[in-house]
């Protein structure tokens, strides 16, 4: 039931937008699974996997490698990459804590 988002506006948190660039995913073409179609980390990872099995082509939004001699020889990109687990629950927590926004929780409730 999602209408096209006007003016190419993307509704995704900053960390998800960054992840999309990192994985070479064109976030404007990702289907969001959150409330009103908000794009989650999981949506971007799914899109990246689909891209990969499709072609090895990267979106034009992908970061260009730059010829710089970075101090430790490794960009922090790889360090930042998290494991594949979804963003909605933190399994490390002993407490059953749901990290989902109010609107998400209400949708689940219904």
């Amino acid at each position: 039931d999602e209408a096209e988002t006007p003016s190419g506006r993307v509704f995704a948190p900053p960390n998800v937008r960054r992840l999309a660039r990192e994985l070479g995913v064109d976030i404007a073409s990702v289907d969001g699974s959150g409330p009103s179609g908000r794009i989650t980390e999981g949506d971007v990872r799914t899109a990246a996997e689909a891209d990969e099995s499709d072609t090895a082509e990267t979106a034009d939004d992908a970061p260009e490698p730059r010829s710089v001699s970075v101090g430790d020889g490794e960009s922090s990109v790889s360090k930042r990459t998290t494991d594949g687990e979804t963003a909605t629950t933190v399994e490390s927590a002993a407490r059953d804590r749901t990290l989902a926004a109010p609107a998400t929780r209400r949708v689940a409730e219904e």
Partner: protein
Amino acid sequence: MVVGDIATGTDVLVVGAGPGGYVAAIRAAQKGLDTTLVEKDAYGGTCLNYGCIPSKALITGANLAHEAGHAEEMGIHADPAVDLSAMVDWKDGVVDQLTGGVEKLCKANGVNLVEGEARFADEHKVRVAHGGEGQGSESIEFEHCIVSTGSRPIQIPGFEFADDPIHDSRELLAMDSVPDRLLVVGAGYIGMELSTTYAKLGSDVTVVEMLDDVLPGYEDDVARIVRKRAEELGIDFHFGEGASEWQNGPDGGVVVTTETEDGEESTYPADEVLVAVGRQPVTDTLDLDAAGIETTEQGFIDTDDRARTEQDHIFAVGDVAGEPMLAHTASKEGIVAAEVIAGEPAALDYQAIPAAVFTDPEIGTVGMTESEAEEAGFEPTVGQMPFRASGRALTTNHAEGFVRIVADEPSGFVLGAQIVGPEASELIAEIALAIEMGATLEDVASTIHTHPTLAEAVMEAAENAMGQAIHTLNR
């Protein structure tokens, strides 16, 4: 006119018109439910009449007078004179405006207002005794009931609020003049807000507290900043002492005796005494057993995550439903109760309740502390930004304190924050939203924050936790 015992019926009966009750009543009416709100004293409850609002109004006044009198450093020379009874009048005007607003909003939303004191007659009926002129009483039958009768200050043995020099917070917010010497029993948030206020207004303030620091429940480094500032304002603290009795003093005032655990006694002269050692629920005047509801030993009513009591059709919200006893928790619970009654999928499923203390500086907290996060099984990482590195804080001439943000290291999820400093009560709102949204440190750090604002310190604390702060050295 004497009203006899007439019986009326209602879908939703709300007992008590504080921030729990009036909000519940308005929301229930908005959902199309026939709603009746019974209040025995004043619309807005403790919060609007004797608590949050009056205290914050006097804090504003005291701050302004004190700051203007201590701004030579900024080139401002003033020697403000404070007329406390005029300040209290101004405060009363603010209260009237708000309580009048509550009454109007209730009516505009179609809530039936009944004045009087309610007691349960059975599981589906209350009797409301009308005070004052009209006298008499009426019975109201209900499908659903929301109990929101709030709390009252706890008395300590030997210190009766009925006695002239012994005051609860309500009385201290309605004084005619600034006492020369004020003794405050209890250094919790109410005691600390009021001692700071009166110290700024010119009282010699002494605080006695059983525990060993101010603001029990807050982390040491948070409480310390507030205590230090209070000491700078001339407040004299005595920890580890409980007030045991008082007598009339030789000079017209009183002498209060305190006792340590070991039985060591001290005496303090004072003109007025504030006892602020906590609050207890108002549930003993409700005949709750007639409704089939038991209370805890301390008098609280147990509720589930829909604000429901052991009786499915009776809800309890606000101070009667236990800690945290805060106005915004009361309102949230009231909204959930009303929506559940309306058949909606509402629940008390919030992740974090923010809280503020309006001391100097203010405190704002939300979610978990570092050690709570650890106990909960997270791997916490912490970022901090001192306000003395904040341009905005320096320009306001209030640069004490810090923003601390707590997050889960592997996932980056924001779990909590402790802010002590200027506008801490406002700044905490952003982090509450971050927690509810499941935002990560990166999300907070990447959001552009206006320069120069105190809110930049929130962003900077998130960056600090990520090891990439600009305005502080990263650990």
